[in-house]
């Protein structure tokens, strides 16, 4: 029982990371009907930026905030420069562009920072709490993720820009008629998603060790979590990410270790999707006749 609770809790911490990246994926999907396959690599690159800042002597939280700002601006730029040309093209073209972006970021990171595994500092001391039930590190990760979610909620629910972004995602033409610069809203959306991804990367790097291929598995789990929750639902993304994290951990501990863990975890989740093909909180993709 004790071990089960332990595994659930550390699963939640991993799940918090998947939930963050899943949320980034959902944000972009809601705005542009596109799955950004490069989200993980963008997050990895942001994490390397944070690592460089920390190595240059910046205190951790200063590096963290600066990285978020840089990632936000980077995300906006990517939307404007790289995604804008294929926004009105067939969806497959945009998908291929994100795959290309994935490759570019991965290769650039390998070239600039090499493929050697690097240690990444954690701001949380490595201690256990509540009778070895959980670690401060896990609690810290969950805490940071919750804080980020809260900020996002406040932003979207209570600010004019947040409202404009929601409108632009729902009905771009109508939003334009209200004077909302839909293109700029999209760019902000990508910027926010990039910043969220950076948070996920920084939280997970101390555990996985930093290398250009760090986020590949994370992206896969995040994508799964986003779909499990329903690709159009931000709440679903968070819940889905958490469920995936716990499932992965439990499968790895009790069912099957190492390589096949990924396959089994995915299979279980796909089984859920068979019964709920639009995810737990998703709405059906409506077809107009």
């Amino acid at each position, binding site marked *: 029982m004790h071990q089960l609770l332990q595994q659930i809790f550390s699963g939640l911490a991993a799940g918090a990371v998947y939930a963050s990246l899943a949320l980034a994926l959902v944000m972009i999907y809601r705005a542009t009907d596109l799955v950004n396959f490069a989200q993980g690599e963008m997050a990895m690159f942001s994490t390397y930026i944070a690592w460089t800042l920390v190595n240059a002597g910046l205190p951790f939280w200063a590096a963290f905030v600066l990285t978020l700002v840089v990632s936000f601006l980077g995300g906006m730029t990517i939307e404007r420069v790289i995604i804008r040309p294929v926004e009105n093209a067939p969806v497959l073209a945009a998908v291929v562009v994100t795959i290309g972006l994935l490759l570019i970021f991965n290769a650039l990171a390998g070239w600039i920072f090499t493929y050697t595994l690097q240690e990444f500092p954690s701001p949380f001391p490595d201690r256990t709490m509540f009778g070895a039930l959980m670690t401060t590190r896990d609690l810290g990760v969950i805490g940071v993720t919750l804080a980020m979610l809260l900020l996002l909620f406040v932003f979207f629910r209570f600010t*004019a820009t947040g*409202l*404009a972004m*929601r*409108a632009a995602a*729902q*009905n771009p*033409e*109508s*939003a*334009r*008629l*209200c*004077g*909302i*610069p*839909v293109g700029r809203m999209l760019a902000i959306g990508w910027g926010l998603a990039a910043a969220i991804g950076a948070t996920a990367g920084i939280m997970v790097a101390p555990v996985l060790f930093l290398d250009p291929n760090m986020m590949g598995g994370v992206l896969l789990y995040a994508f799964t979590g986003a779909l499990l929750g329903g690709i159009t639902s931000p709440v679903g993304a968070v819940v889905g990410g958490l469920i995936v994290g716990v499932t992965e951990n439990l499968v790895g501990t009790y069912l099957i270790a190492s390589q096949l863990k990924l396959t089994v975890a995915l299979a279980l989740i796909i089984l859920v999707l068979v019964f709920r093909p639009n995810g737990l909180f998703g709405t059906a993709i409506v077809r107009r006749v």
Partner: protein
Amino acid sequence: MAPILELRAVKAFYGQSEVLHGISVAVEDGGMSVLLGANGAGKTTTLRAISGMVRSEGEIHFAGQRLERRSTEAIAGLGVAHVPEGRGTMTGLTVEENLRLGAYTRAGRPDAAMARMYDYFPILGQRRRQQAGALSGGEQQMLAIARALMMSPRLLILDEPSFGLAPRIVEDIFSIVERIRREQHVAVLLVEQNATLALDLADQAYLLETGYVVMSGPAKTLADDPQIRRSYLGY
């Protein structure tokens, strides 16, 4: 007095096809002009051309500015509030959020303007926290108009506001629009299939047919014209 909106020899295109062949339309400052015509005549296309939603040629003058080649959101920011066909309400947002959206281009807090909207449309005040998608057709139309008015526009463009609504509701809506026009000094460009009602309210009228203006003049003159009476007024 110069008209607040004037189109001169405007052509519009869907892809390679030309659908408006050089039309000229005007709206007086604070006045109301109506575009009449059968389905496919080009009425909605004209409105879309004004809002920069279709490719167009020719001159579009608004309050001393030129609208051609401006983006839709820039045109909205200049004071053109366009309520499109099908209302365009954000069904996933609440009534109140829809109204707030209208105030996006205006500085300052929208509370005073929102209170005024609840005064014009009491039913919206009652339903302010509900999802816009849960409102009836007539209520959504009121919401769409209210949202447009939150922009403090100088020109209100209404595309078939009576569509799909019961006659009683249509009367209500139009009497409110009349009241707003007088109190707020807003010009109105109206597209309507309900010609009787439209010609009753408007100052100027234009009859469109397959992308051409085939008749224009004061609304009273067109209402008395025997051809219009036969084709569009039913008597």
